[in-house]
C-alpha cells in the first residue's frame, strides 16, 4: 500500500494571466472518467482526477489524457493524495512530455462545495486550471459535461469567494471518429468490421443519402415541400463537384484504374501461389 499524504487545502490568491476561453475534450478522457467512476471505492460519492493536455495558441485547452487521483471528502475538508498525483504525472510525462497538467475533472453535476479547495490545489500546479464536470449520475436526465474556469472575487484586499464560470466545451472526439462510433456506442460488439464489410456499410449509407436527396428533389419539383434555397445550393454544389470529363477520357481513366487493380490482385495471387509451391518443394527437397 502506498503511503497517503493527506493535505488540507486552503484558498490562496491565484496569479493573473489570460484564462482559457474554451475547452476541447477527447473521447478517451470521457471513457477514462466513466471507467474510474465505475471502479470508484465503496464509500466515495465522486471521483476526481487530473486532466492532461495542452493549451492551444487560440486560447483553447485541448484535453487529451487524464488519470484519477484518490481523494476523500468530508463536510469541510478535502484530502488529496498529492504523492500519487505527482507520481502519476511523472509517469505520464515520461511517455508524452508534450502533455502537461491543464486542470482537473470531477464526476457529479456542476460545482460542489469541496471543489473550490481542489481547484485551489490545481491552480498551484498550473495557472488557470479548468474544471471539467461529468454528470455520471444523469441527475438532470441528460448527459451533461461542463467545463469551468474559476476567478476570485475580492473586495479590496479581502478575499471573498471563488467564482466558477462556465466556458464553451467542444466534444468533437476526433480520435473516436477513427474507431467508428458503432463500436463505442453499444455495450457489446461481437466482431470488428473488416475492410470490405466497412466498405459495404459506407456504401449503404451513401445509397440512403442519395435516395433521400432524390426524394427531396422530387418533392420540391412536385410542390409537396417548400423549396429551400440553401439546400438547393448545397445539392448543386455537390453535383458540380464531379469533374467534367468526356466519356472517352473517363472510360480511359476508369479502365486504366481497373487494369491497375486487376494487375495488383493478379500479382498478389501469383505471389501466394509461388509461396505455396515453394513450401511444397521445400518439404519435398527435404524428403529426398
Amino acid at each position: 500500500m502506498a503511503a497517503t499524504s493527506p493535505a488540507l487545502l486552503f484558498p490562496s490568491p491565484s496569479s493573473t494571466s489570460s484564462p482559457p476561453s474554451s475547452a476541447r475534450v477527447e473521447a478517451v478522457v470521457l471513457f477514462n472518467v466513466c471507467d474510474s467512476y465505475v471502479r470508484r471505492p465503496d464509500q466515495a460519492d465522486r471521483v476526481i482526477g487530473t486532466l492532461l493536455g495542452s493549451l492551444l495558441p487560440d486560447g483553447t485547452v485541448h484535453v487529451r489524457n487524464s488519470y484519477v487521483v484518490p481523494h476523500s471528502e468530508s463536510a469541510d475538508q478535502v484530502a488529496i493524495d498529492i504523492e500519487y498525483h505527482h507520481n502519476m504525472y511523472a509517469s505520464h510525462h515520461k511517455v508524452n512530455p508534450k502533455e502537461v497538467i491543464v486542470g482537473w475533472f470531477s464526476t457529479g453535476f456542476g460545482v460542489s462545495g469541496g471543489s473550490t479547495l481542489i481547484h485551489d490545489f490545481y491552480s498551484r500546479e498550473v495557472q488557470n486550471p479548468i474544471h471539467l464536470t461529468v454528470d455520471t449520475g444523469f441527475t438532470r436526465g441528460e448527459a451533461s459535461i461542463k467545463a469551468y474556469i474559476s476567478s476570485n472575487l475580492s473586495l479590496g484586499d479581502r478575499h471573498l469567494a471563488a467564482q466558477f464560470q462556465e466556458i464553451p466545451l467542444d466534444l468533437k472526439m476526433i480520435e473516436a471518429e477513427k474507431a467508428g462510433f458503432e463500436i463505442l456506442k453499444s455495450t457489446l460488439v461481437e466482431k470488428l468490421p473488416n475492410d470490405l464489410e466497412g466498405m459495404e456499410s459506407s456504401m449503404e449509407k451513401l445509397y440512403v443519402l442519395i435516395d433521400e436527396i432524390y426524394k427531396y428533389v422530387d418533392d420540391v419539383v412536385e410542390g409537396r415541400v417548400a423549396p429551400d434555397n440553401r439546400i438547393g445550393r448545397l445539392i448543386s454544389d455537390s453535383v458540380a463537384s464531379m469533374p467534367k470529363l468526356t466519356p472517352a477520357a473517363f472510360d480511359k481513366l476508369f479502365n486504366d484504374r481497373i487494369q491497375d487493380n486487376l494487375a495488383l490482385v493478379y500479382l498478389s495471387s501469383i505471389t501466394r501461389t509461388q509461396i505455396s509451391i515453394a513450401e511444397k518443394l521445400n518439404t519435398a527437397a527435404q524428403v529426398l
Partner: protein
Amino acid sequence: MANPAAPGGARSFLQAVSTVTEEAPTPLRVVQMEGLAVLKIIKHCEEFAPALVTGQLLGLDVGSVLEVTNCFPFPIREEDDEADADGANYQLEMMRCLREVNVDNNTIGWYQSCLLGSFQTVELIETFMNYQESIRRCVCIVYDPSRSSQGVLALKALKLTDSFMDLYRNNGLTGEKLREKKLSWVDIFEEIPIKVSNSALVSAFMKELEPESPVTQCDFDRLKLSTAPFMERNLEFLIGCMDDLSSEQNKFQYYYRNVSRQQSQQQAWLQKRRQENMARKAAGEEPLPEEDPSNPIFKPIPEPSRLEGYLVTNQISSYCNHINGVAGQNFNRLYLMKALHED
C-alpha cells in the same frame, strides 16, 4: 442402432469435456476489449506514428475469454541499461498506481503499433516467449495506424500457437522436426477474434452526446479514391520481403549443396578406407575402423533455422491480404464513381 448409441455418446462427450478441462486449460477463444483500452491504444499509437510504440495490457482471464479492461503506454525505449532499469521501474510504478484506483492490475499481454502490418519479426516472438514465461495466457494486440486512414479499424489480437512454442523452446525449427509436427508458416501465429464491450455508463454518454450522424469521417476515408500511395508502399514492402525470402532460399540451397558434397566426400573416404582394409586383410594386419570422428568431413553441418523464412512468408501473405483487400475496395469505389458519372 442410432438411438441406444446416443446416450452413450452423450456421456462420453461429457466425460471428454470434463477430462479436457482437467488436463488442459480451455483454449483462448475471444479477446474482449473495453472501449477505453481501444481508445487508449489508438491514441498512443497515432500520436507517435510512424515511430513504433508498445504498451501493457491489463485485464482478466476468464475461461476462454481474455478481457482487456485497461492498458498503459511504455515510454519510447532507449538502448542502454539505465533506461532499461528505468523502464522496469516505470512499469511497476504504473501498475501500483493503477491498482490503487481499482484498475485490474493483471498483465495479460502487450500492444504495439506496426507499419503496414509488418509485425512478424523475431523480436515479437522473443517478446512472446518472455511474456509466456510469467503469464500462462498472453496476447499481443497489434494496431496499424497507416491503415486507419483507410477507414479500417486495424486491430488484431495475436498469439503464438502451442505447437510452434514447443518447437521454438526446444530449438526444433529444423526441416525434419517441422515436417514431423506438420508445422508450416501459417501455424506460427493464431489470430483471435476481438469483441468490444463498453460499460453501460459510457454507452449512455456516447449515445447522448454523439447524435446518429448520417456520415462519419470513417465513411469519407473509406470512399477516398486515392489509395495509390498505400498500394505503392505495400508493394515496395512486398518486393523487399521477396528479396529477403530469396536470400533465405539461397541459404538453404547453400546448406543442401554443402550437405550433399559432404556426403559424397564421406562415401569416397569410406570406399578408400575399405580398399585399404582389404589390402591390410590380405597382408594379415588389423583392419582400421570405418569411422573417424576426428575427420572434419564427418562433422555435421548445422542446419539454418527456418524461422526467418517462415516469418518472411507470413509477412508476404499479410501484404498480399492487404493488397487484395484494398484492391477489392478500389473496385467498389471505381464502379461507384462510374455509376455517379453516368448519372
